[in-house]
């Protein structure tokens, strides 16, 4: 019964989405208020219907209703409750339902928070959201129905892939989708602007919160994914330049570029065409990512099923969305006049450089990701493009980008003073050189890239702090006046500083963990001690234990330095029963200074166990830094001027005091 209700409301959602896609668009063209207002109600009904379908599927999972094919294939009655629920989106059909749910949620959010948007713009945005919804709901109903029945129902389900039974992975897809789908809103705004033929600073201000939200969620989603890979796969790596990872990294890079170019539109009324194009590209990359991951073109833990009908459907949808939007762009973009002139050395100039580098980096990653697929399709040759390619192309583009990061915020709009900025940044330069020099003095064989990485960390970290303290005139007057200035500084300015510091921390984490990691690989017997990275690891043996739906061999390690009494680590080698599968559970002791990482392998038949032990300095900072970046985005999002309901008011205020708000983005 639940499945039939779910199926029914899903069809209802599709019909609503079709109407939402058509009527408001006509209404906006004819300036008909009722037809435009219809969009709000449609967005609400569509969301309610998809939420209903999602709840129905969740009930199926929680109640272990194995007469639903999707539940039978992906769940099991003995599975812990958290994974019964996360199992809803741990499969192809359910994950698409989640995608549609989030899409409808964003549509509803535009309808609810966009009260001050002009009627026609809002109607068009919701209409485009509706059309994207039509595509996804058709895809679900015609090729990937989550409510398909199974008769006779099996006694029990076949279980969820144990690698996916993990808290990190329970939350990774929702965040990633919030990011992917959040970009649909900026896309809809871009298409609506093209239809209207008008982009102005107000438009940029309406788009900015959605871009920020999407970017923040993507940041968290990608960080969770890499964290999962780090502790769950047991290889100690956290980023493999795997096509699936690239599929999420490309929209992130595009969204980062968009975030910065929208500032130029907002403050200076320039780069309009470029920003519109970026909005289209960012969402197209999200769709492409979904296509690559869901169609089975790539084989990975994400490719749940490879049904050719699905691949063809997504491909047609992709061509329709990307081709259609680029066609519209080609027709309409030349009509839009850019404003504000500026010199290359200026805030705008720095943001243009940021955009050039980010989009070029995106393009090189896209090339490396798609090349093997095209080569296979056209010649049948099987190749893969490995990390060396991505490192050789991405890093040289990222380095100037990071150098420019400290400069950009110091420049004035229109015309900057390079010599003045350099002199204000000399302290950051000094700290970088001292850090690099000290490291090199300590260890003359440090790889050059590691020294560069450390230098960049210090440069951005100190540079960002210098810029922030300059804004509040720290130590240039009484502390009380600095405090007052700090409180007056727009939150988006604080947000930028925090996000840039986050980037610096990520650079520190990557550099330090890659450079000073130490490793031990070998067979250990109970009582044996090895020293890795200044810690003594004592192996205390292994025992067999039983978990809720698996058995495991659990090893015990005591890791200690001479001074403290140490910490115990319990890595496991698990054998799940449904589906039958072995997994490695690394035991990790995360600390701010380093992670201790232990993995236990098979017994060698004489009482020894194959083990792998890593000491990874500062690796936690990769994820701490990512979270700090997210916080920066959230802080920026909370800026009064961007508050979703108050774009008009904020705008009037800005024209009254252009100096204060023109200060920063």
């Amino acid at each position, binding site marked *: 019964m639940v499945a039939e209700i779910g199926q029914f409301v899903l069809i209802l959602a599709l019909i609503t989405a079709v109407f939402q896609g058509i009527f408001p668009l006509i209404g906006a063209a004819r300036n008909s208020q009722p037809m435009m207002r219809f969009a709000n109600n449609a967005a609400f009904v569509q969301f309610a219907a998809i939420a209903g379908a999602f709840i129905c599927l969740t009930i199926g999972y929680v109640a272990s209703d194995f007469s639903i094919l999707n539940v039978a294939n992906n769940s099991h009655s003995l599975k812990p409750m958290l994974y019964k629920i996360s199992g809803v989106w741990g499969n192809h059909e359910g994950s698409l339902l989640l995608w549609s749910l989030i899409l409808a949620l964003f549509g509803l959010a535009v309808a609810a928070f966009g009260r001050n948007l002009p009627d026609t713009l809002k109607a068009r945005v919701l209409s485009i959201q509706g059309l994207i919804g039509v595509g996804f709901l058709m895809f679900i109903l015609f090729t990937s129905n989550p409510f398909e029945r199974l008769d006779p129902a099996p006694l029990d389900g076949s279980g969820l892939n144990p690698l996916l039974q993990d808290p990190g992975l329970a939350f990774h897809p929702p965040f990633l989708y919030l990011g992917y789908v959040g970009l649909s809103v900026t896309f809809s705004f871009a298409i609506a602007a093209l239809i209207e033929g008008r982009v102005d600073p107000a438009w940029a201000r309406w788009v900015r919160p959605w871009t920020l939200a999407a970017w923040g969620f993507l940041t968290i989603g990608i960080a969770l994914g890499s964290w999962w890979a780090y502790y769950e796969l047991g290889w100690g790596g956290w980023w493999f330049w795997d096509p699936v990872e690239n599929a999420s990294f490309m929209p992130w890079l595009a969204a980062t570029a968009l975030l910065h170019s929208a500032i130029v539109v907002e403050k200076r009324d320039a780069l309009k065409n470029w920003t519109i194009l970026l909005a289209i590209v960012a969402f197209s990359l999200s769709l492409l990512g979904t296509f690559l991951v869901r169609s089975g073109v790539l084989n990975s833990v994400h490719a749940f099923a490879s049904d050719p009908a699905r691949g063809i459907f997504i491909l047609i949808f992709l061509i329709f969305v990307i081709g259609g939007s680029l066609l519209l762009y080609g027709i309409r973009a030349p009509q839009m006049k850019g404003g504000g002139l*500026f010199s290359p050395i200026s805030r705008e100039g720095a943001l243009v450089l940021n955009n050039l580098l980010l989009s070029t980096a995106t393009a090189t990653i896209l*090339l490396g990701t798609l090349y093997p697929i095209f080569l296979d399709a056209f010649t049948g040759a099987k190749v893969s493009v490995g990390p060396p390619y991505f490192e050789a192309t991405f890093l040289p*583009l990222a380095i100037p980008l990071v150098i420019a990061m400290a400069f950009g915020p110091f420049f004035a709009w229109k015309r900057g003073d390079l010599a003045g900025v350099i002199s204000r940044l000399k302290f950051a330069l000094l700290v970088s050189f001292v850090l690099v020099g000290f490291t090199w003095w300590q260890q003359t064989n440090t790889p050059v890239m590691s020294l560069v990485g450390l230098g960049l960390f210090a440069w951005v970290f100190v540079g960002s702090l210098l810029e922030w303290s300059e804004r509040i005139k720290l130590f240039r007057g009484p502390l009380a006046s600095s405090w007052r200035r700090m409180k007056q500084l727009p939150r988006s300015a604080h947000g930028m500083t925090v996000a840039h510091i986050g980037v610096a921390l990520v650079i520190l984490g990557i550099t330090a963990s890659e450079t000073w990691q130490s490793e031990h690989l070998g067979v250990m017997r109970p009582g044996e001690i090895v020293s890795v990275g200044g810690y003594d690891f004592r192996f205390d043996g292994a025992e067999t234990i039983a978990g809720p739906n698996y058995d495991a061999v659990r090893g015990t390690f005591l890791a200690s330095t001479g001074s403290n009494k140490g910490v115990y680590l319990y890595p496991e080698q698990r054998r799940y029963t449904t589906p039958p599968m072995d997994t*490695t559970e690394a035991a990790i002791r995360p600390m701010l200074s380093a992670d201790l990482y232990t*993995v236990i*392998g098979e017994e060698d038949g004489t009482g020894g166990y194959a083990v792998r032990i890593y000491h990874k300095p500062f690796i936690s900072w990769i994820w701490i830094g990512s979270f700090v970046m997210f916080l920066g985005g959230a802080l920026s999002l909370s800026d009064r001027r961007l508050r979703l309901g108050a774009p008009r008011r904020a705008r009037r205020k800005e024209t009254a005091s252009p100096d204060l708000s023109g200060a920063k983005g």
Partner: protein
Amino acid sequence: MTRKKRRLYFVLAGMCVLGIAAALVLTSFEDSLVFFRSPSDLVEKPIEPGRNFRLGGLVEEGSVEKNGVITRFSVTDLNEVVPVTFKGLLPDLFREGQGVVTEGAFNEEGVFVATNVLAKHDENYMPPEVADALKKAGQWQPEDGG
């Protein structure tokens, strides 16, 4: 500064960045392409020692021999056999008779030294490259998985 001049600057900057990127792509592409070969492919098109590539097939029954953390095994497409050695912890689903993809290079003795044995995520899963290689070798049985 005029609009035209500004546009010229942008175009120049864009060309520079793209030019640098193109140079980076071209210099690194050839070296970082990793080819996939089945044991039979290697008889037709041998690969010189030291060159990195991916070798895929089935782990030959009875070939796995462990010595501490060093494992020796053979990869076969049921026509040809290639000896492989790997130092490290094997992925969870590594088993005799199962599909496997390894990455590494031949040493001078003609033994494939794997730096990486790719983990598979599902026990019924057959890497598509391996399935293709088995089909080509005329040894494909659909019940092997897929």
